[in-house]
């Protein structure tokens, strides 16, 4: 089968959605099919160009393609008679993030109508999380099935001997709140160490962490590995950690950082307001769910390091909970191509 994966592209930006598309392609090929990736440029700004970009997608033509797997708005509007949707998110600014601005009213109506038309004929409609599923049902009245994205290259996350550090991976920005972990570190005993690794979104995000580390004088217990790292390097950090921490604000999905931690059998520290992560992080079972403030975080970081045996048990529980979801690439490809 010739499968075309259709995704958006914001030129020069690479993130979780892009990784998912590339790994989907790789795994479709591994299942014995042909797969190519189509990335259609899309810019949120200015908003008055959104309608023309929907038309852009609707007027593209395809032949020599047996199946399309469509991932994002508005790329999923590309016409094809055999289209499977795996919706990572809709255009949230006119749905759950709608702010009521009058100039967005028209756009909201138009996008809702176009989305409804796009999905109405769909025989195969998946979403990447319960939250995306609920939104699609609430705003468009359309039912879908949840298909959790698997971990990419799970073979890298083997786990391993725990050293006395907590690892926080992923993109670094205000919403991911790595700065809270540094503030918390300052309140922990001297045997607690922290590694933060990943690409800062902006120079400001980077400077914030650097100056905080200096101000709180935690330099000797903190390692900052800032930048875009090879997957192997990230896996090394995860495999050697005693526990992992990930505190995004209201994330839609389980979060790759926490999924990779669970794959490696590591306990996870997260925030009570971290959204989709709470499906994977169960307090005192697979990790710790705390109020996102430095005091509470400091207390569980200390516990994670000082009570090693209990932490290891939680890590094993995290792995078995994740495995129970059955999100593997071979199964995912099978369901998408069925």
């Amino acid at each position, binding site marked *: 089968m010739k499968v075309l994966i259709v995704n958006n592209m914001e030129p020069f930006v690479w993130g979780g959605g892009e990784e998912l598309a590339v790994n989907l392609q790789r795994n479709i090929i591994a299942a014995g099919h042909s797969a190519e990736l189509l990335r259609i440029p899309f810019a949120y700004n200015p908003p008055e160009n959104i309608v023309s*970009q929907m038309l852009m997608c609707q*007027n593209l033509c395809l032949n020599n393609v047996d199946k399309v797997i469509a991932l994002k708005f508005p790329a999923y509007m590309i016409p094809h008679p055999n289209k499977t949707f795996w919706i990572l998110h809709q255009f949230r600014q006119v749905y759950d993030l709608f702010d009521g601005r009058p100039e967005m009213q028209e756009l909201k109506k138009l996008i809702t109508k176009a989305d409804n038309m796009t999905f109405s004929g769909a025989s195969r409609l998946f979403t990447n999380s319960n939250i995306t599923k609920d939104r699609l049902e609430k705003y468009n009245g359309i039912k879908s099935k949840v298909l959790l994205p698997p971990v990419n290259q799970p073979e890298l996350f083997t786990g391993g001997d725990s050293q006395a550090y907590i690892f926080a991976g992923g993109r670094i920005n205000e919403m991911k709140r790595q700065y809270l972990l540094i503030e918390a570190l300052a309140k922990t005993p001297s045997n607690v160490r922290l590694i933060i690794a990943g690409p800062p979104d902006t120079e400001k995000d980077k400077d914030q962490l650097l100056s905080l580390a200096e101000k709180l004088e935690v330099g000797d217990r903190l390692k900052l590995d800032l930048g875009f790292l090879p997957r192997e390097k990230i896996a090394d950090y995860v495999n050697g950690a005693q526990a992992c921490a990930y505190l995004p604000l209201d994330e839609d999905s389980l979060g790759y950082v926490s999924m990779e931690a669970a794959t490696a059998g590591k306990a996870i520290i997260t925030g009570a307001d971290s959204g989709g992560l709470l499906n994977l992080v169960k307090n005192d079972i697979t990790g710790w769910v705390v109020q996102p403030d430095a005091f509470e975080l400091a207390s569980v970081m200390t516990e994670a390091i000082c009570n090693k045996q209990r932490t290891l048990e939680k890590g094993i529980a995290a792995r078995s909970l994740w495995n129970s979801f059955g999100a593997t690439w071979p199964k995912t490809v099978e369901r998408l191509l069925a």
Partner: protein
Amino acid sequence: MKIALCTSFSPFCLGGARNIVDWLELTLLERGHQVEKICLPHVDDPKLLFNQMASYRWVNLPDSIDKVICFRPPAHVIPHPNKVLWFIHHIRAMYDLWGSKYCPMPNTEEARRFRKALISADTAALNEAKKVFTNSKVVSQRLGKYNNVQSKVLYPPLFQAEKFHYARQNDEILYLCRVEDHKRQHLLVEAMAHTRTAVKLRIAGVSGSPRYVKRLRSLIKKHGLSDRVVFNNCYVSEEEKIELYASCLAVAYLPLDEDSYGYPSLEASYSCKPIITTTDAGGVLELVQHNTNGYVCEPDPKALAAAMDELYSDRDAAKKQGVNARQRIEELDISWDNVVESLLS
């Protein structure tokens, strides 16, 4: 610099402009630029042409991209203040092939209006570009003739050309490319029947046409050439290819009226081997000069046979032509340095 490379493609079909775009991407990355490749699908059907052009026109690229380089149509209509074109062909059925058997549209009043609208849209998009480059003189001439647009020829180089080298001269004329009707491997097989020396021929490559492959095989058999002609209808790996070029006596490349000189001509030149081509090969004639770096023959088996015999008999002359072929690359300034300098300056 942040550079976007924009082109059109047909899903699950290799070839077309993919080499030139992929190689430029690698070259720019090597030189420390940030590159994003934007490849959008295109279906070759006049009925869908304007819808698809509208799609490309609606592509919304941020101004923060320093340079947008567009290749295959309709990518040239993508708007951007810093657009440069490396234009490799028109939608030819509507241009130079209009009215020929390759044009699917009947010559009606409606079709003529359609063509006029396309030409004026193309011209407008071409005029937006900061600079227009082409891959051959013939494409530049067409741009002048149909769109009244001035352009500069920027010859596409080979990627990692230094891998090609001279090792020896065996007795083979090598024809290494896709095995298709319009590449005319059959002319060489027929020429072999007219040769008077022990010169040999090697044809290798994949094919989309089983009928043509069968025709070649039966020609070889008919002329009793199986001891002097090797025909491998298969994919040739990069390593094998380099070795074949390094060892052959000379290279043949005789497509029917192609726009560009073709990568086989460049591979031959980097391997210091003379090139046999024909007077009707199109862009190949921008590279090959008769009796200097090869032979430009009439597209006729006897003329080709004479050239092959000459190369076989006078090895020193063949060697000298091969050296000239290598120099011809410098003469035409076919290099990535020149490409990068031209596109980014």
